């Protein structure tokens, strides 16, 4: 791949005997917003720190912009990092923090001051230069950390859960701004997050990691619609998985009945015999009294109701199954919220199914 700015080949990392990265092979394209998504302890931070140069690889190769990084220390790599704690230097002013990376550049001091002002303006902190860094709010620290890392115009910006310390409103606002900023500067961003929604919103491509391995690398849409394994499907959003039996192009699904399936619906290869059939909550709907449909139908008992304002989530147990499925419904005007214990008719589509080899 010629346009890969970061290229890892079979990278392993051991901490003593603990195998933290287990054969990571990955190409990240120049200018893309790339996310590393996975549960706590799966090795996201380790992978990011490996790229930054804070950890060295136990085996495998890491290329940045086509150059082998094995003997290049973190301070010589074309990467900069935004730390989870932001690591703002508390004894320096905002401007001194932002301009820290320019200390060794050959620019004259007027040019440096201009670069600092531009960087501050870019992150919406114009005029904050003389403030003391230790007196900033969480959101402002985050912006200073961003400006400080971007001022050197790195080839790759590494962000380790930069939004996790912010409250929900501010986090959503910063997600927008980060995305806008990335488009504006055109630098490759690699974001580490354990928040699947954040990864879906912001990324061009996402690598889902479990236990030191990449389980799937895909665009947000492909990841959501066509998860390779049941585990990925259940990690990204909600995925109802029912036991099924597949023979040829037909699946017999517990509680839903028989339905035709195509190879396209089995991203990891068409299973034969016992399999898992996955369906998302929004791919099913509840039919209200008198409503008719041309879709496939089934029925089940509502065992739990979760009212979210804009949406209602129903837990429904289908006959012949024990685990409830989650169905989401928009709360359109005039549509009642069902009570627990109601028997509900359900409409669903065979095209929405995803088949997994594991049940």
């Amino acid at each position, binding site marked *: 791949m010629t346009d890969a700015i970061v290229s890892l080949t079979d990278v392993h990392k051991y901490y003593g005997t603990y195998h933290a990265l287990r054969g990571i092979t990955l190409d990240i394209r120049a200018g893309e917003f790339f996310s590393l998504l996975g549960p706590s302890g799966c090795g996201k931070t380790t992978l990011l720190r490996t790229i930054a140069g*804070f950890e060295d690889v136990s085996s495998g190769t890491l290329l940045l912009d086509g150059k082998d990084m094995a003997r290049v220390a*973190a301070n010589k790599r074309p990467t900069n*990092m935004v730390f989870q*704690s932001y*690591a703002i*230097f508390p*004894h320096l002013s905002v401007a001194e923090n932002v301009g*820290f*990376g320019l200390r060794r550049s050959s620019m004259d001091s007027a040019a440096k001051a201009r670069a600092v002002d531009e960087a501050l303006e870019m992150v919406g902190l114009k005029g904050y230069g003389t403030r003391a860094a230790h007196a900033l709010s969480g959101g402002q620290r985050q912006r200073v950390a961003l400006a*400080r890392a971007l001022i050197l115009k790195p080839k790759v910006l590494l962000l380790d859960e930069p939004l996790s310390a912010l409250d929900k409103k501010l986090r959503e606002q910063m997600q927008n701004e980060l995305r806008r900023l990335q488009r504006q500067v055109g630098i490759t961003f690699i974001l580490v997050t354990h928040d699947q929604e954040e990864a879906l919103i912001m990324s061009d491509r996402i690598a889902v990691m479990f236990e030191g391995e990449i389980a799937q690398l895909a665009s947000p849409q492909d990841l959501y619609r066509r998860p390779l394994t049941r585990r990925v499907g259940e990690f990204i959003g909600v995925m109802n998985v029912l036991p099924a039996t597949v023979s040829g192009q037909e699946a017999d699904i517990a509680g839903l009945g028989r339905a035709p399936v195509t190879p396209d619906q089995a991203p990891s290869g068409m299973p034969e015999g016992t399999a898992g059939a996955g369906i998302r909550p929004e791919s099913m709907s509840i039919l209200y009294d008198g409503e008719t449909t041309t879709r496939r139908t089934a029925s089940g008992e509502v065992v739990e109701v979760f009212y979210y304002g804009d949406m209602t989530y129903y837990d429904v147990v289908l006959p012949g199954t024990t685990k409830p499925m989650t169905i989401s419904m928009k709360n359109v005007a005039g549509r009642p919220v069902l009570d627990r214990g109601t028997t509900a008719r359900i409409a669903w589509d065979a095209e929405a199914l995803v088949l997994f080899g594991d049940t």
Partner: protein
Amino acid sequence: MKLNLNWLKGYAVLYLVFLYAPIFLLPIFAFNDATVIAFPLKGFTTRWFADLTTTPALHGAVLNSLFIAISTAILSTCLGICAARAGARFSFPGKQGIIGFIMIPLVLPEIIVAVSLLVTLLQLGLSLSSWTVILGHTLICTPFSIAILNSAFATLDPSMEEAAYDLGETKWSTFRLITLPLVMPGIISSFLIAFTISLDEFIIAFFLTGAEPTLPVYLWGQLRFPAKLPIVMALGTILVAFSILLLTLAEIFRRRGIAKAGGRDTGGFL
């Protein structure tokens, strides 16, 4: 509950009286116009303090003590920086054991340290001088320096150093630009504590001192002459005031350091 609390208060007051009453007697007799240290007081005078300025042997002892205390403070603070930095950043096999071993002089009776050092030095054929006292004092001050600097380094976010390194600085310039300023209050505090301990220390100085006595050793020598007793009281008053000042400064710097690094107070001496 109420009763218990009253008992506790009474105990605390008694304890403080017992602890500080002798120290309060120092200035009282230092300004008392009589050679005999006894009540009733005779009248106010500053002549004991004036006498201090006209005793050359005393001046030699003071200079000697200052030299030893400053050298000790520098040495033990440097050793403390290395140990605390290593302890905060790296984990290696036997780390707990090694740290524990370094801290032992904190609880070892000084007389044992003094005697064993004396025996070792004599075996090695080294002659006693200010340098041997510095050696002994560094040994007992280093654990204090480590304890103070540990709290300074432990509250320092490791990503601070990584951030500076990531922005192009070298390991050394990172230490100079980021680490050192952030732990500076701890360093000053360690320096002041070590200085104070060395200045007041008697047993090790008594055993290891050469031809020139330190101030406490000189003082002890003067106690044989009852007529000099009020002068000793005056000197003691100055020393107590000076020590309290230094310890207060040390604690102020230690707290300021923790606040600066954004951490919470965990321990310290005062």
